[in-house]
């Protein structure tokens, strides 16, 4: 490549990264800003973090979010993995149509899911609470789990399962000793995806939770309506750090069993 082309590409990449990360860095900086208005730097402080940690409303919302996310992850991972196994193994009438149905939650606007669920709850005369948000969250994340696991299954040699059965393992033993360990990286990636989708899901949570059971994004939304407080900046900073740590940790975990197996 020519020297000039290289330089232009480098500058261009720099610009893209700046576009991604500069707002986040500024947000993190202003979480340490000693000013309530938050547009001018006036001095360094930890006040907003102190204030944040004494905000019980915020912790309640975080708890709600985690509660929903954990249940969603478990359900979506189990159902999505089972769906992937069915699609990978069996041929049945209407397979293509059902396969198509799994793409719909990926492309359908969340608002449609939210309103539809709200209508069903109304029809069933159910009181909205915390758990009423879960079906919506599960519905939009199952497909993602299924796709990730299906991709992993596609790379799996079917004769491995035959070999296990040939050696005396029944269906159950074959699944837990051969199939599952080999698709586990895919299942884990699917679970992680479901968790992140649930934790920052706003629209469905906003519509389908009852009063007093705010999730974190919903609470942040209601706080921001009164102006961006540096407390939100502090919260965002903590969330970013947690996610970065989580990604680094699981990223390594996800790669290593895979690597060991395939080396």
């Amino acid at each position, binding site marked *: 490549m020519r020297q000039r082309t290289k330089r232009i590409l480098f500058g261009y990449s720099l610009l893209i990264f700046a576009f991604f990360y500069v707002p986040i860095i500024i947000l993190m900086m202003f979480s340490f800003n000693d000013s309530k208005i938050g547009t001018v730097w006036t001095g360094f402080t930890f006040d907003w973090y102190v204030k944040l940690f004494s905000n019980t409303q915020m912790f309640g919302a975080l708890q709600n979010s985690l509660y929903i996310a954990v249940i969603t992850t478990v359900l979506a991972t189990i159902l999505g993995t089972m769906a992937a196994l069915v699609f990978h193994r069996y041929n049945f009438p209407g397979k293509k149509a059902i396969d198509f149905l799994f793409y719909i939650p990926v492309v359908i606007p969340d608002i449609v899911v939210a309103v539809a669920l709200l209508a069903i709850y109304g029809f069933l005369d159910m009181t909205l609470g915390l758990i009423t948000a879960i079906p919506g969250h599960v519905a939009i994340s199952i497909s993602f789990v299924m796709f990730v696991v299906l991709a992993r299954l596609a790379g799996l040699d079917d004769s*491995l399962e035959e*070999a296990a059965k040939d*050696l*005396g393992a029944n269906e159950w033993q074959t699944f837990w000793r051969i199939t599952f360990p080999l698709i586990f990286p895919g299942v884990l990636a699917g679970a992680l995806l479901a968790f992140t989708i649930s934790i920052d899901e706003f629209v469905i949570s906003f519509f389908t939770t009852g009063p007093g059971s705010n999730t974190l994004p919903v609470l942040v939304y209601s706080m921001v309506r009164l102006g961006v407080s540096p407390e939100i900046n502090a919260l965002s900073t903590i969330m970013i750090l947690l996610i970065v740590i989580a990604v680094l940790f699981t990223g390594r975990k996800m790669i290593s069993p895979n690597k060991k*197996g395939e080396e």
Partner: protein
Amino acid sequence: METMVQLDNVSKKFDESYAVENVSLNIKSGEFLTLLGPSGCGKTTTLRMIAGFEKPTSGSIYINGKKMDNIEPYHREVNTVFQSYSLFPHMTVFDNIAFGLKMKKVKKEEIEERVNKVLKMVQLADFGKRKPKQLSGGQQQRVAIARAIVNNPSVLLLDEPLGALDLKLRKQMQLELKHLQQELNITFIYVTHDQEEALTMSDRIVVMNAGKIEQAGTPYEIYEKPQTRFVADFIGETNIIGGNVTEIKENYAALEFGSQEVYVPNNNYQTGEKMFISVRPEKIHLHTVQQEGKISLKGRVKEKVYIGSLVKWIIDVGNGNEVKVQQSASDVEDLALDTEVFVSWNPDNSVVLKQ
């Protein structure tokens, strides 16, 4: 000897076409039987039905006298060596081999003893702790064999197990497998498309074509007495000559071959009957003068190929017909291309084929 595996009129249909059609076969205990045929002939499907991975559309399979109709693969006393080896990538060599014994809940000490014994048998004693990916193709092949034989199966099914190895290793493994089979006295059912491999290793060869058995017999019978055109053509090189019976002379029937004649031992043939015969190139001799009282076809040298110990000739005998001749290199005179020669063979060395 008692029957170990019996196929009773077994057919397998995929969609609307038969992969295997009305195959009946008795395989004796301790026999090395090879299913031989081109790809798509149904040999692998037959093997997979014996293993239990495919269900016959009709007919039944018996193993050790027991009907296998609804028996799952994990309840059959057979083990398979897969074409792609199918070693479990997330387990060590030791755990791969121990898998079958663990499933049968064999005691830990016994597992250790038996796995180490087969590892020694396949010359991989120090490789137990490795992962399959850290082994060469030949070593993986040995692990796959060890993983199967450690379970002391009544029958070992092998699906082109040497297909992925290079020629030299393949020849070596052929002999090792044959020795292993004799040592363990297990019934081997071996699938291959390599006729030389089949001739080298088998007690009995079953030649399959288009889902049906063409011929079953010892390697000698298959090579020397092929019954059908397909078998004669598929196993080794041969000359297939087709023509009408022109006259019956004493014990021989004369057959027109271009403008000349060849003879076959008479077996109630009728004048005018169309028949096919096979003559192996190594049964045919070349002469520079006409031979009296024998088949002796006049022709011209069209091609000569020297391959070390042997010389292969293609002789043009007129009317667009060619005869392949093969001779030991020390037996031949050096004949130039286009030299007039006479090809001859003993009529008893020709085999009459079924259509």
